[in-house]
């Protein structure tokens, strides 16, 4: 029996609903994980990363164009 025949006879009428549930489960898991109060401090301190590399950088050298 070919894969095409197996898939054709598999009765996948609820396929889209399974996909939706799969996503919904993943979404709830992520939201719950990210927005737990206990993680707030841990996560929010990362927000400064783009800003914290502008400190003094010494020494400098010259590069010709």
């Amino acid at each position: 029996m070919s894969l095409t025949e197996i898939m054709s006879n598999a009765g996948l009428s609820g396929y889209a609903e399974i996909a939706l549930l799969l996503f919904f489960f993943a979404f709830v898991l992520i939201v719950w994980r990210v927005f737990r109060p206990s993680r707030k401090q841990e996560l929010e301190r990362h927000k400064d990363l783009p800003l914290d590399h502008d400190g003094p950088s010494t020494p400098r050298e010259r590069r010709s164009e």
Partner: protein
Amino acid sequence: MAESVRPVASIPPERDVTQRPGVPRLDSFSYDDVVVRKFLWATIIWGIVGFCMGLIVAIQMAWPAFNLAPWFSFGRLRPLHTNAVIFAFAGNAIFTGLYYSTQRLLKARMFSDTLSKVHFWGWQAIIVSAALTLPFGFTQAKEYAELEWPIDIAIAVVWVIFAVNVIGTLVKRRERHIYVAIWFYIASIVTVAILHIFNNLSIPAGPLKSYSIYAGVQDAFMQWWYGHNAVAFFLTTPFLGLMYYFMPKAAGGPVFSYRLSIVHFWTLIFMYIWAGPHHLHYTALPEWASTLGMLFSVMLWAPSWGGMINGLLTLRGAWHKVVDDPVLKFMVVAITGYGMATFEGPMLSVKSVNALAHYTDWIIAHVHSGALSWNGFLTFGMIYWLAPRLFQTPLFSRKLAEAHFWIASFGIILYVVAIYSAGVTQGLMWRAFDETGRLAYPDFVETVARLIPMYWVRVAGGSLYIVGAVLFAYNIFRTWRARPATYDVPVVQAPPLPGAAAPAPAPTPVPAGAFARFVSLGWHRKWEGLPITFTVLTTLAVVIASLFEIIPTFLIKSNVPTIASVKPLTPLELAGRDLYIREGCFNCHSQMIRPFRYETERYGDYSKPGESVYEHPFLWGSRRIGPDLAREGGKYPDLWHVRHFQDPRAISPRSVMPAYPHLATSDLDFGVIQSRVDAMAMLGVPYGDAITDAAALARAQASQVAASIAQSGGDAGLETREIVAMIAYMQRLGRDAQGNTGNIPGAAAPTTPDVVPAATAGPAGPGGAR
């Protein structure tokens, strides 16, 4: 602009803090801004080229006489415009911001300067290849994937080089946490690679000619799985990465909510990949796939607006800066544009809205409202911010940047207002019936002629946008001119990972019990610190989502009921189809009649999935500037087509179609027909005797078509000209579904067991028949 590079000098011991007692070891390094400057210039140059191509095709739509030559016609230049602005302008903008921000966020120089250079020059070579092939008709006929197979291979190679460089930088980074902007970059890199490779799988039929390995419904599905996600993972996620880095930099404060950015990332990654089928509502695509695409598109509202709000609220407490800072002005409008476009996109995916908007300028307006503001303005804002830092001198003129902002903003407004109006106007005209129940505008050209004033307004709007871009280029050029004789190259110090100066975060207590351990998600925290694992898992998320849609589309036979009377095109018709592709006719003509009364009244019976089982590639189209051609065969005599191709306005005075007189004067290349047939046969098209005798069969049919034209009063001696192949193809369109089949000796009908007669071959899903 060649920049000579000298090795970074060692830090004098008296200034090296790592030599002081009690200080942990720090690495000293510098960032590679040479490649950033190169990508910046490429962005500006290709941006102006791409915008000007857009202006040219806009003028051609309003004034068809501006189709000056075969290589300068709308059908060939429109793909050049889209490729130039997406892959050349936006692509180089992504690389500019990515190379700058990645090094700084990871506290590491790029993995390899050589790979950076190969990436830069390889990408520019690909862009030049596109500019040299598309105007001459070398195209795969798949939107945003037009480039032929050798260039596709080059794109894959250069993209892998880019990926290795970024992943290598991640591996050697000195910052433990990978900032969310990098997540967006990683997802973009892996997903674009997957989309590009699988959508472009094809069988070569010559040095610059190939046929997609997929046919009909499957090809349409793969194309819009790619097409939509090209927007998602080339024009959205990498730019979101840029937003999450450059917006805080420009605003001088951190992103509003880091937690919201994480949810934004994961929900986009999970959802975007499903949404492609909304481009194929009411076509022969199975109903379930179309509905799934709509559902996920509507759900995209939430994360998209979450991201937009996160971006805008980054300015909390700093809104006063927007008044004086052109960088922030550009970014605020960019993020607002993102919000508007991502509100409208889900709305357009709703089937009832899509029924009106599909094939009209509404979609063009949607794309441009997003691209001109979100991609364009974010790029302008980013470069205005970068230029003083990269060229180490103040911006030449803030006033000029302000002028750029206002001129371009006004240009966007003119463009989108005109083209939204054009889209809604034409959509409503197509579906209008008079009081007797007949089409109110039965002549298609009426619905185009009404749009011409709006097309001229678009030309004005686009021109203003280009004027702004020229001011921008001049401003950056003058800034560059004022650069120092030599650039400072700061030496940065940071502890390596793992290192004493960067201790790992305190371990999180491990809950008792397997379930508690699972839901505590410590495993996810670990993934975030492992770039390769994170990359693999992001890839898996994308691949699994794709397979949920692709596997049933390809493997469930009932999705594409085949039709007994549908047979392969004859060799001459195939040659005509190749000319149709070469001239880019699919840019203006669809071949997919939707199951609405206002469509079947105008064009004929609605299209069935089984009609395109030999269509490599599918040519359903996405825009109707001309009428649908799915049932064109037999509507007009051969001579009508000759006259129409030579001068469309001689037949239909208000037509905007380019003239194709060269078809009647150029010789058809019978020598390549056999290789084309062989390639199609390799893909499983049952070509019968044509496998050994394609050229002779083509010559015989060409003589018949030429004789018919001559007998009708047309020119004699056309049997060797391209126009006979084009007419043979035109006259075949839609005939098979009516029971009229091709005439190749030995050509077989579909052999699968679910072959049904033409009369009963309906659409695959329950929503198809209306």
